[in-house]
């Protein structure tokens, strides 16, 4: 099917649900108190946007995810690369990292609050931890599984160590690294909610808590909607930026 047709098909279900809900509430068939109709949610969104609050909250959340993502991805790529290329380091570090990976990351929250208070540091750190593991696993696994013969062809042509890394290792591990980054970004959004639920005065997570405490379901749904939009948008940006790097791949990526 054409691109436009596919996008259109994906919109059918949410649109039908929204319109159905709106129609059911209008004549009083169901109460809209706990789940407000799309029109009210839209109005709330518009209000938030008009007052400038929406921008502030979205910005706060995106900055946290962005910082956490950058830290987690950078450390993950570095650690993955080192562990995969230096056996001693692998034996030293990998078991501990794998053990830490098994800890549900939310379990860190109390500890991080104790250590770093409730300001930005623990939030960014929590997100970074969430991003780190998929990136680390992706990069180290990808390097370890590079076809030995691809390296040997490079050695026959007498590529320097740097040349081997740049011309062979890097492109070979790029796809798995990008998958790791993408997973990491998704987890970043998962964790920013947790981070903002643990106490924040701005951010989309704050809108959730605030909406719950003051009984504003429209604000909660509006925040959820924004989370979805921001997450999808960030994923789209990542995919668009990295697409040229893996154009050569013979995969189904385009349809994802």
């Amino acid at each position, binding site marked *: 099917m054409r691109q436009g047709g596919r996008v259109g098909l994906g919109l059918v279900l949410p649109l039908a649900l929204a319109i159905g809900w709106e129609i059911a509430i209008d004549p009083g068939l169901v109460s809209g108190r706990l789940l407000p109709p799309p029109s009210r949610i839209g109005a709330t969104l518009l209000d938030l946007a008009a007052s400038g609050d929406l921008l502030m909250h979205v910005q706060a959340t995106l900055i946290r995810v962005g910082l956490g993502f950058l830290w987690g991805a950078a450390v993950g790529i570095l650690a993955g690369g080192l562990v995969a290329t230096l056996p001693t380091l692998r034996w030293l570090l990998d078991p501990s990292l794998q053990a830490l990976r098994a800890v549900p990351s939310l379990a860190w929250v109390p500890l991080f609050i104790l250590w770093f208070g409730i300001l930005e540091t623990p939030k960014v750190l929590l997100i970074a931890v969430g991003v780190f593991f998929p990136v680390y696993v992706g990069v180290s696994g990808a390097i370890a599984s590079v*076809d030995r*013969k*691809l390296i*040997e*062809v*490079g*050695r*026959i*042509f*007498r*590529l320097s160590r740097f*040349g081997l890394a740049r*011309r*062979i290792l890097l*492109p*070979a591990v*790029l796809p798995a690294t990008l998958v790791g980054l993408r997973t990491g970004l998704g987890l970043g959004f998962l964790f920013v909610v947790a981070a903002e639920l643990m106490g924040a005065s701005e951010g989309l997570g704050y809108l959730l808590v605030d909406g719950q405490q003051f009984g504003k379901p429209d604000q909660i749904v509006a925040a959820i909607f924004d989370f979805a939009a921001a997450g999808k948008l960030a994923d789209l940006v990542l995919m668009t930026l990295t697409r040229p790097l*893996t154009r*050569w*791949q*013979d995969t189904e990526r385009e349809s994802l």
Partner: protein
Amino acid sequence: MVAATLQRHTDQARGASLHAEAVSHAFDIRGAPLPVLDQVSVTVAPGGFVALLGPSGCGKSTLLRLVAGLEPPDQGVITVGGQLVEGPDPSRLLVFQDPTLYPWRTVRGNVALGLEAQGVGRADRAARIDRALGLVGLSAFADAYPHQLSGGMAQRAALARALVNEPRLLLLDEPLGKLDALTRLAMQAEILRLWQEKRFTAVLVTHDVEEALILAERVIVLSDRPAAIRAELPVEAPYPRHRDDPDLVRLRRTILEILGQVT
């Protein structure tokens, strides 16, 4: 014909001599040594063409890897062009059993790798790559990615990647193993033409007795693992050769008998 062959052999400008002296090699499989090569000695004159035949798993690829300098032999000495082999070098190139192209590079990019590594300038590079792709009949697919090639085209791309570097010794590890019968015949003619034109020294590993007899000046038959030399047979028929040439048919029977005793 004979004069031409002699002429080719005395012209040492391109091909490098190969000399492997009593090479033995063993791999370590979970602590237990697995002997793979047993006192193998092979000599190929500059510009010569030798085929290696032997049962699967006997150590043919290993021998080529040692000559290519990818691993040092446990025992024995290997020299190419009078120089001790101490590591890989672009003057003696190994074409692997499978094409091992870089999936993220186009055909042109794959062929370019060796020239890039040697710092050949861009313009010179492009001209040489075009020539190499022309030689293997892949000019139309210069910008295709490996996954867009057929198996035989991928093998030809791998061949071009080696030829573009004008190696003095070309090590071919079953380069036609996965091709259908027709493509295989065409590629055999191609390899023969390239060898006669470029005058490199060639060592070809193959499972196909006929292929060895059509191409090589000498056929070396290896025993089962650990590989030792069972027989060395000169093939004197002039090129181009025909499968039904009585001399070749006789040689073929002899070789199959030797192989039959072995397996």
